[in-house]
């Protein structure tokens, strides 16, 4: 790949100071790990890499925070084009489709294992987590790292003030709507309900749990010719509910991606849909009694909801010219270290992400973690509820971040009162399908 674009040039400038660091220093193999974990989560990443560096004398890993998930994706792509890719990069789950199509830019886990002789047993990882990052024949493409699912966080003080039972969170959407109305009526919080990662928490999870297809071709797992199905009645119903709630002031659009997140620990929002991994920051910042519950479901659509899907990210090994076998081995050793049950359990307990290995889960149970921290196993219970179907494995749609942006835009138009629920979802499908066709052409070409 000789062609360099403007973007690649910029990345080269940005990455230039790192390049020399990638080479052996004092006999140690240096490897670079880019991640997107800020704040408390970033400190946990540092704890892991520090631990790894102290545990052996062969490899020295340098962890670098590269910004948000999409920013990290962009940086990794630009860096690879410039021949300066990091050894290991954390990539959010919706980037999986793009990374699988990245061919020579990445070294999938099974390849890395074959080349370095360091074994990773797929069966050691939780099925719901592993599935998202594996090829259809079961070989692992990327290493599961921080996996979460979305949960409903609620302010117990606000619930009590609104005359609701703080110990029994609503389980259905009808009950959530009623609770939000009670909170508004009693003025128990300035925002009755909001959602972080609205597309993920309110639509993608909704599709999986109710066993409703999100896109054709098994949500993209079966082929590139996939088309969105989010303008079908279940999704329109959900959108209509949000529009109605927005109109009567019980739902507040808090912005795209994770923008709404801080509204919960600050005490503004009484009900917040957010990642199970919000636990660390909520625990640290919230000055009120809070509770956490499973995502609400709609019995009219499916009375027996199944598993929710994961969110979060996995770790991809990237290639670069002149990268040595020793460096790849260093990466494999780091991945092996992270998958150790003790490390996995600590990561899980400190961050609220689910353990990615079965052994890590068992260890946490044995340590009595879930008895001491009620609700900490909700994410695992929700992820393993029922029998997974092809609608609940996750998504393998190319350019999925762009699909989400399109949905955000159309939702924002709807909440401004510019369009109804059906029109919103129709527009998201029409524009999204165009993107999917573009992706199909660019990957096949």
């Amino acid at each position, binding site marked *: 790949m000789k062609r360099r674009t403007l973007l690649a040039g910029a990345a080269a400038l940005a990455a230039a100071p790192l390049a020399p660091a990638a080479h052996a220093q004092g006999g140690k193999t240096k490897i670079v790990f880019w991640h997107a974990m800020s704040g408390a989560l970033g400190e946990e990443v540092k704890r892991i890499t520090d631990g790894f560096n102290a545990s052996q004398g062969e490899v020295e890993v340098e962890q670098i925070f590269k910004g948000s998930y999409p920013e990290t994706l962009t940086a990794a792509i630009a860096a690879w084009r410039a021949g300066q890719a990091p050894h290991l990069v954390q990539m959010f789950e919706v980037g999986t489709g793009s990374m699988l199509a990245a061919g020579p830019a990445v070294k999938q886990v099974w390849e890395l294992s074959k080349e370095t002789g360091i074994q990773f047993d797929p069966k050691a990882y939780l099925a719901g987590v592993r599935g998202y990052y594996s090829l259809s024949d079961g070989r692992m493409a990327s290493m599961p790292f921080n996996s979460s699912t979305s949960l409903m966080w609620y302010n117990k003080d606000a619930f009590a003030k609104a005359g609701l039972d703080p110990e029994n969170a609503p389980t259905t959407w009808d009950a959530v709507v009623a609770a939000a109305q009670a909170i508004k009526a009693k003025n128990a919080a300035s925002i009755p309900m909001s959602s972080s990662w609205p597309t993920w928490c309110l639509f993608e999870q909704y599709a999986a749990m109710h066993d409703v297809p999100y896109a054709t071709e098994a949500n993209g797992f079966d082929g590139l010719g996939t088309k969105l199905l989010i303008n079908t009645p279940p999704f329109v119903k959900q959108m209509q509910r949000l529009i109605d709630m927005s109109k009567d002031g019980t739902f507040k659009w808090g912005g795209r991606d994770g923008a709404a997140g801080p509204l919960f620990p600050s005490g503004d929002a009484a009900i917040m849909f957010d990642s199970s991994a919000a636990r660390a920051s909520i625990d640290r910042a919230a000055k009120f009694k809070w509770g956490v519950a499973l995502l609400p479901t709609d019995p009219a659509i499916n009375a027996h909801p199944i598993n929710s899907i994961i969110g979060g990210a996995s770790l991809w090994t990237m290639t670069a010219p002149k990268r040595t076998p020793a460096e790849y081995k260093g990466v494999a050793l780091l991945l092996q270290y992270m998958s150790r049950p003790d490390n996995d359990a600590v990561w899980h307990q400190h961050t609220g992400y689910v353990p990615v290995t079965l052994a890590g889960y068992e260890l946490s149970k044995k340590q009595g973690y879930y008895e001491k921290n009620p609700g900490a196993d909700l994410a695992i219970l929700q992820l393993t509820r029922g029998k997974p179907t092809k609608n609940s494995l996750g998504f393998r749609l190319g350019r999925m971040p762009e699909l989400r942006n399109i949905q955000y835009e159309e939702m924002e138009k709807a*909440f401004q009162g510019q369009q109804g629920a059906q029109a919103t979802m129709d527009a998201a499908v029409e524009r999204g399908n165009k993107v999917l066709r573009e992706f199909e052409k660019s990957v096949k*070409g």
Partner: protein
Amino acid sequence: MERRTIFRGWLLPVAFVLPQLLLTFFFFLWPAGQAIYASMTRQDAFGIRTQFVGAENFTDLFSDPLYLDSIRRTVVFSASVAVLSMAVALLLAVFADREIRGRGLYRTLLIWPYAIAPAIAAVLWVLLLHPQIGWIGHGLRALGIHWDYKLDGAQAMLAVILASAWKQVSYNFIFFLAGLQSIPRAVIEAARMDGARGWRRFRTITFPLLAPTTFFLIVVNVVYAAFDTFGTIRALTRGGPGKATETLVYKVYVDGVENQNLGSSSAQSVVLMLAVILLTAIQFRYMGRKTER
């Protein structure tokens, strides 16, 4: 008497202009060439597979109603920013041009906003306009106006226009002030003797004599609003809500950097490049005519 040095041969002159040529090549021609090339390809994000597609990216662009919307939006935005910032600057310049106490300080203070980085300017406006924490936003809500620029497209547009125009007022102020000071006092005096009062004097004497400055500023302001407001929009609205504040330049960023659609993004850059060339040509032509006179 004009002083002119004649160089023999061509080596020395070439050596003199070489640094400039190299800079132009590496920082303009090369990237521009890359953009033109990329605008005719379809690539996956990593650039592993690149297909030549000719003008397909351009035809796609101009048949895309979202792109045409973005053009319209950019025209409205640029015109509003130019008119608003120039009108305010002219008003301030006219007042600062008078004999008032402490006008040195007054003038200096008016120039300050120009030195503020766009992102910082936007943050200041966020602190003013934010529906919950900004005092203007808070005040508007207290007055019963439903102010929420994060969800209301028209209000979002108003917010980015205000922030962008405010930032450009200083620049326009300097030019208008200089323009006003270069108008011969004798002309103004003559008008006064003829009995023309303030507004009439301004309308018939001052404003026409400011025409060259005004024209120059129109071009500069339109270029500023269309191309230099990325930072403000990014920090204030991120192009949203919906696509309510997504101008052409912002769209290049979204499609190229966020969506990794390099072909389309490059095609948009090429379209913008042509627009800048056109605007610059108009300006040069006009300025050229002025110096000939």
